[in-house]
């Protein structure tokens, strides 16, 4: 898979690149393997989907729906949390996290192991493979989930997608000085997810900072305070790139801090989707063009965009 094309070039009117149009996406029926609680109304679910697990990379997503029935009708998009590997280290299943908010996620919270679901993917461009020195990941609410895979890949402890098959060279060339900081903001402690999956990182290269809106855990305030603190540091303590996923207002704030600090920033958007692969033209977002802006499909032009390519909606 070519992952060098993650939207780093500015968008132009004439040539629209579609880095998230994945020619090897597939539709599968797979079994639910397990479901576990991560936080209040927040669950992680594992699906037996070998081909999808082999192909997907952090920041990409897939669509999921029940095998039968028409209500709910449409699939729902979920970002990869992690792939599950077998004894030989080959990915055999995928895991994603969700927060119960509506009809589909309520139904999902009742899904039991052994039930079949339909998934299609991988979809979207995913985060670019990070090659700087210090990556700052910023997650708001359930938006922290792509950063487990991103951190593993950035620190070279796991590779995803096609790169995992030719992993040795890439892994050995991973910069041993490279660091990751995860800033994770939630409304309050009871919505903070269990972060034990992040325990296996080398603490000299990976750290987590937490904020809650009500001060019940970590920094009392918004996660954007932590972002500003990190970017005011000196030397290698100062991140040289930012990946962000969360509510749009939070992402807009992070983007503006990064712009002021002159640090490149990528945002992973979540817009309402009907199909996930570009057919329906529902999930449009305003992308900056030579002559203003244009609505572009988040699913196949993104969902990860360089912050400067987006024209945020004024709400």
């Amino acid at each position, binding site marked *: 898979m070519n992952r060098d094309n993650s939207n780093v070039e500015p968008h132009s009117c004439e040539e629209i690149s579609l880095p998230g149009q994945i020619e090897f996406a597939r*539709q599968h029926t797979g079994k639910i393997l397990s479901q576990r609680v991560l936080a209040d109304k927040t669950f992680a679910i594992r699906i037996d989907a070998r081909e999808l697990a082999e192909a997907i990379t952090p920041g990409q997503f897939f669509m999921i729906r029940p095998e039968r029935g028409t209500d709910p009708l449409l699939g729902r998009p979920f970002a990869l949390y992690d792939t599950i590997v077998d004894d030989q280290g080959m990915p055999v299943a995928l895991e994603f996290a969700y927060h119960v908010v509506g009809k589909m996620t309520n139904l999902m919270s009742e899904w039991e192991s052994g039930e079949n679901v339909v998934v299609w993917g991988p979809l979207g461009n995913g985060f670019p493979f990070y090659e700087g020195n210090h990556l700052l990941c910023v997650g708001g609410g359930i938006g922290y989930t792509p950063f487990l895979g991103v951190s593993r890949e950035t620190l070279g402890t796991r590779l995803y997608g096609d790169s995992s098959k030719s992993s040795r060279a890439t892994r050995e060339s991973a910069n041993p000085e490279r660091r990751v900081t995860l800033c994770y903001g939630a409304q309050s402690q009871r919505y903070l997810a269990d972060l034990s999956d992040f325990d296996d990182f080398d603490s000299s290269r990976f750290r987590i900072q937490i904020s809650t809106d009500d001060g019940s855990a970590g920094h009392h305030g918004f996660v954007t305070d932590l972002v500003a603190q990190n970017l005011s540091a000196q030397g290698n303590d100062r991140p040289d790139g930012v990946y962000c996923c969360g509510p749009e207002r939070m992402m807009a704030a992070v983007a503006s801090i990064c712009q002021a600090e002159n640090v490149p920033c990528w945002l992973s958007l979540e817009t309402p989707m009907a199909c996930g692969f570009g057919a*329906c033209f529902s999930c449009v977002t305003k992308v900056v063009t030579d002559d203003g802006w244009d609505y572009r499909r988040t699913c196949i032009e993104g969902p990860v965009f360089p912050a400067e390519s987006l024209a945020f909606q004024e709400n």
Partner: protein
Amino acid sequence: MITRNDHSVWLRNRRKPSESDSYRKSSRNDRIDEQNDIATEDQSLMADLQVTLNRLKLRNPILVASGTFGYAREMAAFVNFSDLGGIVPKTVTGESRIGNPPPRTVETSSGMLNSIGLDNDGIDVFINKHVPYLTGLDTALIANVAGRTVDDFAMLAERLSGVSGIAAVELNISCPNVSGGVDFGTNPDSAKEVVAAVRNACPFPVIAKLTPNVTDITAIAAGAAEGGADAVSCVNTFQGMAIDWRRRKAVLGNVLGGLSGPAIKPLALRCVYQIAKSVDIPIIGIGGISTIDDVLEFLVAGATAVQIGTANFYNPAVSGSMATLLNQQLDADGIRSVAEIVGSIHQTTQQSC
């Protein structure tokens, strides 16, 4: 055209179909494997799937509906296009249109509302960028156009007649989501006038896509027939809305939208049935089709072909599996051709009277 030769590969099949086969991946490389999976053991699939709608001949009656299949590229990972009778890409207009503000879709009970607003890059980009890809696919290309005036429609048809490889043009005289979009589809005289103008402007078959948001859809179908339409597509979406009562706001950015999906199937079937009963014109049935039974219900009601629409969104491989399923079902029931079953409810009704 389907011949026994084309299907000889199916005869080698050794496996029973499984539940999940309709969800299986389909790419060119493993296509033969999939055909083997779907076909049943020792069965020769030989029903004649070819259908004729006046000047338009299709190798099978399974089409995909405009606005639900992108420009086909988007579906390439999920569908082997040669399994389709034809593709109707997203509506093209003369000038580019930015489309409606999001949210553009919202799910409803067994259906969805959309208000995309004909977001497209205009006829020039369509011809230069999308048509070369679409005409390279092994299936019929039915371009779908929309204009504000009769002259707009005629101009678009004329532009398309300069391009080789287009099998037919479908007129979107039924879009509920743009101003003036449905005007031609709500008045029989206007429908007749626009169809006649397009027939004059291009050499290929003309299909009028009808809106169900009228008092008497058969009158509009009759107008299109008088104008010289080769077929009518029946139906576009039903106008509807969704409300977030807590915010006292409509959910869609454009307030009103068009309802599609399984929820509208009985309504669409009624439209097809009524037109088939009273107007002498081939019908392409559309509305909530997602299973082979749905396809057959529309054929029996009087449709000569069908379009799969919203199902492409939530079951992206479904359109590619449908012709094989149709072949199997006709074969299992001893029906030798699609033509034999089209409109059969009307024969039954006559006999029973």
